């Protein structure tokens, strides 16, 4: 049933940060490999920044799965105490002072700590991170938005301690098309993947500029609409009319109709 096809397609684009759904694109594979290489080096801080929705979180989650010595924190800590406590618990399974634990580690045993949404951290928190990083027993990766140059404050704070800065960008049109195709094919939607043309992808890309979070939302809405109109009006499921893409754009506010 075509309605089921559209229903399945819709579910492909439900927002999820499950690393199992990570779609390998040439750009994010490069970042992943860079992170893997850097993990072997004795860095104190890495800065990973990019606009919201370009796939930073998914990339870091995927990276954290690669090694056992990576500790990923998706939500920011409110205080340095919370951070110390969480690190003690997760790394050493004890609530003691983190610095006492760290003394027992050799530099070769240094752990990687990923702090997502680091743009939320104030000066005090950044200072706490700096002190922990200076022990050389914890290697921090700070992921943050760069839509308003939030990363520059962190860059200024850490200055010489930042080993490398990685800028994550939205995929280009070709990669964007590959992203949609891979998502559909992963769910065995071969016919739908065939009927989804590069022109369709181009139209959507024009609205979302390749932002993956926005694009997922757009595609979810599009397939939801197609499912509705197939059920109620029996539209042809073999092609995706630009009308429905424009309707999705109107619905999501990209077009002021």
């Amino acid at each position, binding site marked *: 049933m075509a309605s089921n096809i559209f229903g399945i397609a819709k579910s492909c684009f439900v927002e999820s940060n499950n690393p199992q759904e990570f779609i390998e694109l040439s750009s994010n594979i490069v970042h992943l490999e860079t992170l893997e290489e850097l993990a072997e080096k004795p860095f104190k801080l890495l800065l990973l920044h990019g606009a919201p929705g370009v796939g930073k979180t998914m990339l870091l989650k995927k990276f954290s799965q690669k090694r056992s010595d990576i500790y990923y924190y998706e939500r920011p800590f409110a205080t340095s105490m919370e951070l110390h406590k969480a690190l003690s618990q997760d790394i050493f399974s004890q609530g003691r002072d983190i610095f006492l634990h760290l003394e027992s580690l050799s530099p070769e045993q240094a752990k990687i700590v990923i702090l997502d949404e680091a743009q939320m951290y104030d000066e005090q928190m950044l200072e706490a991170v700096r002190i922990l990083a200076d022990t050389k027993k914890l290697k921090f990766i700070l992921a943050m938005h760069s839509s308003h140059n939030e990363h520059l404050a962190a860059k200024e704070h850490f200055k010489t301690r930042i080993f490398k800065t990685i800028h994550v960008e939205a995929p280009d049109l070709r990669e964007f098309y590959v992203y949609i195709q891979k998502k559909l094919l992963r769910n065995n939607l071969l016919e739908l993947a065939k009927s989804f043309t590069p022109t369709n992808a181009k139209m959507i890309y024009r609205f979302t500029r390749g932002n993956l979070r926005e694009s997922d939302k757009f595609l979810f809405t599009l397939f939801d*609409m197609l499912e*509705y*109109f197939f059920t*109620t009006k029996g539209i042809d499921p073999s092609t995706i009319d630009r*009308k429905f893409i*424009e*309707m999705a754009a*109107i*619905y999501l506010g990209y*077009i002021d*109709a």
Partner: protein
Amino acid sequence: MHEYEIVEKKWQRYHRKKIASRFLLVFLGIAIASMLIYAIYTKSVKQTSTPKIESQNTTAQSLSTPIHQKSDILHPDLSFERNLGYIAKRLAHTNSHGAQTTNMHKKNDGNITNAIPTHTTHKIVAKTVTATKLDIIALRKQFAQTKDIGIAIIIAQEYYRQKLYPLAIKWSLKANNIDKNNEDSWLIFAKSMYKMGKKETALNALRIYYKKSHSNKAATLYRLMLKGKF
């Protein structure tokens, strides 16, 4: 009604607007393109037509220049020359009115050239220097050396073209003085007179010339002037 159906209605409105704006855009594009093409076409037509006019003028001049070579065609009697001399004398008197340095040779020996002022007013000379082109100055110098009637005719024609009618008359008379049967000298004289408002004088000159030459050109010009269509 489902919210997607509302969206569909919105899309229909949006689509109609989009089509209309595209149509307008295409229409404007075509209009601008047409205007540009028309402008380019008009410009090219002008560019191609201008040299034609110039070549026609050149042809007219080249045709008129060798007229003096036909000097043996007609054998005039002296009576019309006397009449013409009288006309020229009156014209010279009119032109020099108000001028201080008019010097007229009044030898009425039947030669019309002698009846005109040998020196036109300083005003006219000054105007000649400034208004005429350098080639006229060169032609005048050339005429002074060669006394070629063709050059005199060209100068007269050029002055007539520049609406300097007294000078055109002067040079037509100079040409006539060299060859009394030169048709162009008569015609330029008559036309210049007519342009100066001396219609009767112009007609009289043409009548005189026609009597002795039976020139079709003179007859045609006479008829046109008589009807006031010149």
